[in-house]
C-alpha cells in the first residue's frame, strides 16, 4: 500500500511547490506575454527571507508564521522592482524578456552568494512540523502536509483576489481583452505591476516551503524553474485551473517515476511526457481563446 501512498503524497507536496512557482509565471505570461526566468530566483529570495526571519526571531515556530508574509513581500517587491526597472520597457518583445530575465536570474544568484555565502543556510523546522502521521503505511511528514495547505491557501487567496476584488476583475479583463480594457479606462499598466507583484510574491511563499525541505541555497531557483515552466506549458496559459491540475500531475508523476526508476531518470521521463502531451494538446490543458491571428 505504501508503494502507492508514498509517491502519491510526496508528489502532491512537490506539486504544491510547483504550483506556487508556476502561478506567477502563468499570470505574467498569460497577461503580458512576459516569460520571467527570474521567477526561480524569487523562490530563492523567499527562502532567504524565511532564513533571515528565523535568524531575527529565533523561535522557529513564530518565525515560520512571520516568514510567510515577509517572504511574500520580499519576493513581491523584487518582482515589482523587476517590472518597473526592466520588464516594462520590453512589453513589445516578449521573447526578449526571457533572455533579459535569464540575466537577472544570474545576477540575483551571484548576489545571494555574495550576501549569504555560497553554502546554503539552514532553516529549522518548528517542533510542531517535525513529525509525521501514518497514512496507509507511509509516515507522512507534517511538513508536506503544511506545504500543501500553504499552496492551497495561496491558491485560494489568489482566486479570491481575482474573483472578488476590483484589482482581480481588472486583471481578468486585461488578460482577456487588453485593448478593450484599456479603452474602458482600466489602467492596464498598474494592473500589470500588481500582477507582477502578486505572482512574484507567491513564488516567495513557495520559497518558504522549499526552505523547509532543504534550507536556502543560491541556486535553488534553477532546479525549480524548468519544471515550473513545464507546468505552465502543459497547463495552458491564463487560467488557474490548468496550472493547478498540471502542477499536481507533474508532481505526482515525477514522484512515481522517481520511485520506479531514479531521481535522474524521472526528470528525463517527465520532460518526454510533456512533449508527448503537447502532441495531443499543443495549447495545454486549458487556454483563454482570443481572436488575434498572430
Amino acid at each position, binding site marked *: 500500500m505504501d508503494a502507492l501512498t508514498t509517491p502519491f503524497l510526496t508528489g502532491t507536496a512537490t506539486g504544491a511547490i510547483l504550483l506556487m512557482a508556476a502561478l506567477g509565471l502563468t499570470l505574467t*505570461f498569460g497577461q503580458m*506575454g512576459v*516569460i520571467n526566468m527570474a521567477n526561480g530566483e524569487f523562490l530563492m529570495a523567499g527562502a532567504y527571507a524565511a532564513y533571515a526571519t528565523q535568524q531575527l526571531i529565533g523561535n522557529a515556530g513564530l518565525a515560520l508564521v512571520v516568514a510567510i508574509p515577509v517572504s511574500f513581500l520580499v519576493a513581491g517587491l523584487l518582482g515589482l522592482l523587476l517590472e518597473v526597472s*526592466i520588464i516594462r*520597457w*520590453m512589453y513589445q*518583445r*516578449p*521573447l*526578449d524578456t*526571457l*533572455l*533579459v530575465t*535569464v*540575466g*537577472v*536570474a*544570474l*545576477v540575483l*544568484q*551571484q548576489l545571494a*552568494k*555574495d550576501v549569504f555565502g555560497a553554502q546554503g543556510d539552514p532553516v529549522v523546522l518548528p517542533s510542531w512540523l517535525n513529525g509525521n502521521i501514518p497514512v496507509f503505511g507511509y509516515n507522512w511528514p507534517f511538513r508536506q502536509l503544511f506545504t500543501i495547505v500553504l499552496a492551497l491557501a495561496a491558491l485560494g487567496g489568489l482566486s479570491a483576489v481575482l474573483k472578488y476584488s476590483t484589482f482581480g476583475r481588472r486583471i481578468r479583463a486585461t488578460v482577456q481583452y487588453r485593448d478593450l480594457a484599456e479603452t474602458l479606462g482600466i489602467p492596464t499598466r498598474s494592473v500589470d505591476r500588481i500582477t507582477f507583484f502578486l505572482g512574484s510574491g507567491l513564488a516567495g511563499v513557495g520559497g518558504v516551503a522549499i526552505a523547509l525541505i532543504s534550507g536556502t541555497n543560491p541556486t535553488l531557483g*534553477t532546479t525549480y524553474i*524548468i519544471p515550473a*515552466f*513545464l507546468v505552465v*506549458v502543459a497547463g495552458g496559459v491564463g487560467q488557474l485551473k490548468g496550472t493547478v491540475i498540471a502542477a499536481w500531475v507533474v508532481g505526482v508523476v515525477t514522484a512515481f517515476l522517481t520511485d520506479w526508476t*531514479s531521481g*535522474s*531518470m524521472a*526528470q*528525463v521521463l517527465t*520532460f*518526454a511526457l*510533456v*512533449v508527448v502531451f*503537447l*502532441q495531443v494538446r*499543443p495549447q495545454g490543458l486549458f487556454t483563454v481563446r482570443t481572436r488575434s*491571428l*498572430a
Partner: protein
Amino acid sequence: MTTTTATATTTASSRPKAAQLLGTYGSLVAIALVALVLLVWAPNSLSPFRLGNLGKYCSWAMAAVGIGLAWGRGGMLVMGQGVFFGLGGYTMAMHMKLEAAGPGGIPDFMTLYGDGTMPGWWAPFRSAPFTLFAIIALPAAVSFLLGYAILKRRVKGAYFAILTQALAVAFATLLIATIKQTGGFNGLNTFSTVFGHNLYDPGVKKGLYLVSAALLIVFLVIVWQFNRSRYGELLIATRDAEERVRFLGYDPANVKLVAFVAAAIMASIGGAIFAPIAGIISPSNVDAAASVMMIAGVALGGRSALLGPALGAIAVGFGQSTLSERFPTGWTYFQGGLFIVVIMFLPAGLASLWPKVKSLLPGRMSPQAALVDGENGA
C-alpha cells in the same frame, strides 16, 4: 509588353544589384578577414595555450553560427543547443575513449563504476568513419524528430524556447544518470589519440585548432549562402509572419525545421572538435547553463548578422577565460549584466552598431550614395 517588362526588370534590379554586390563583397571580404586572423595570424602569434583556447571558442562559435540561423533568421530561440553540441562531443569522445582503450579494450570508467562490460551500442564507435557519420547523422535525426514533433504542432515563441531548454536539462540529467554508460557527471576524459594522432603532440594540437578555425570559416560561408538564397528570404518571412507564409502555400514548420536541423548539425560538429581540444566533455558542457552561454555570444554579436554570432561567441569565450582570471566572482555579474544590457538596449547586438560606424565613412551616407559608389566601382 515585353519592352516594359524588360525596363521594369532593369530598373527593379539595377540599384540593388550594385548595393547587393557591395553587400556580397562586403560579407565575403569580412569572412576572408576573419579567416586571415584565425588561420594565419593566430597560429603564428599565440602561445599553444591561448591557441587551444581559441580553438574552443571557435567550436562554441560553430554552435553560435547555427543559433544565428535558427534564432536570428528563423525566430526560433533555441535554448538547448548544448544537447546537439553534446551529441557531437560525446560521439567523438566515445571514439577517442575506445582508441585509448586499444583494440578489444573497454573504456576505463566502465570498470570503475560498472561491472566492466561495455554496452553494445558503444561498439560501432570504434570505427572512425562511423564516428564521423554519427557526428552529423545523430543530431540531424534527433533534431528532425524533435523539431517535427514540436514545430508541426505549431509550438513556437516562448513555448519553443522553454521546451528546448528543458531538453538541455533532461539531456544533462540523462548523462549524469547513466554513469556506467556515459561516465556520468565526470563525463568522458583521459583521451590519448584522435584518429591515431597523439593529442599531446604540439603539432596535433595546432592541427586541431586549425581544423576548428577552418570549419568555422566553412560554416560562415555556408550560412552566407543560406542567407542570400531564396530559402534565406523565406526563413526571414517565416520569422516575421509565420501565418502569412502559410497562406503563400508553404508549410512554415518545414521551413523552420531546415534551419533547426542545420543549427543542430553545426552545434554537433562544434562539439566534436571541442572534445579533443578540451580533452574532456561532460554534462556541464551541454546543460542549460552551457546552452545559455552559447546564446549570450549570439545576442552580444548580433543574432541576425552574418558574423555577429561567431564573433560574439568568441568574445564571450575569451571574456569567460580572461575576466574570470581577474575578477573570479565578478564574472557571473558580468554575464548577467551582458544579457540585460545587450537585450534591452542593443537587441540586434553589436552588429547593429556597424551601420552607424559605416555611416560615418564618407560616401556611404545613404542607399543612394551607396548606389553611386557601387556604380563607380563596377
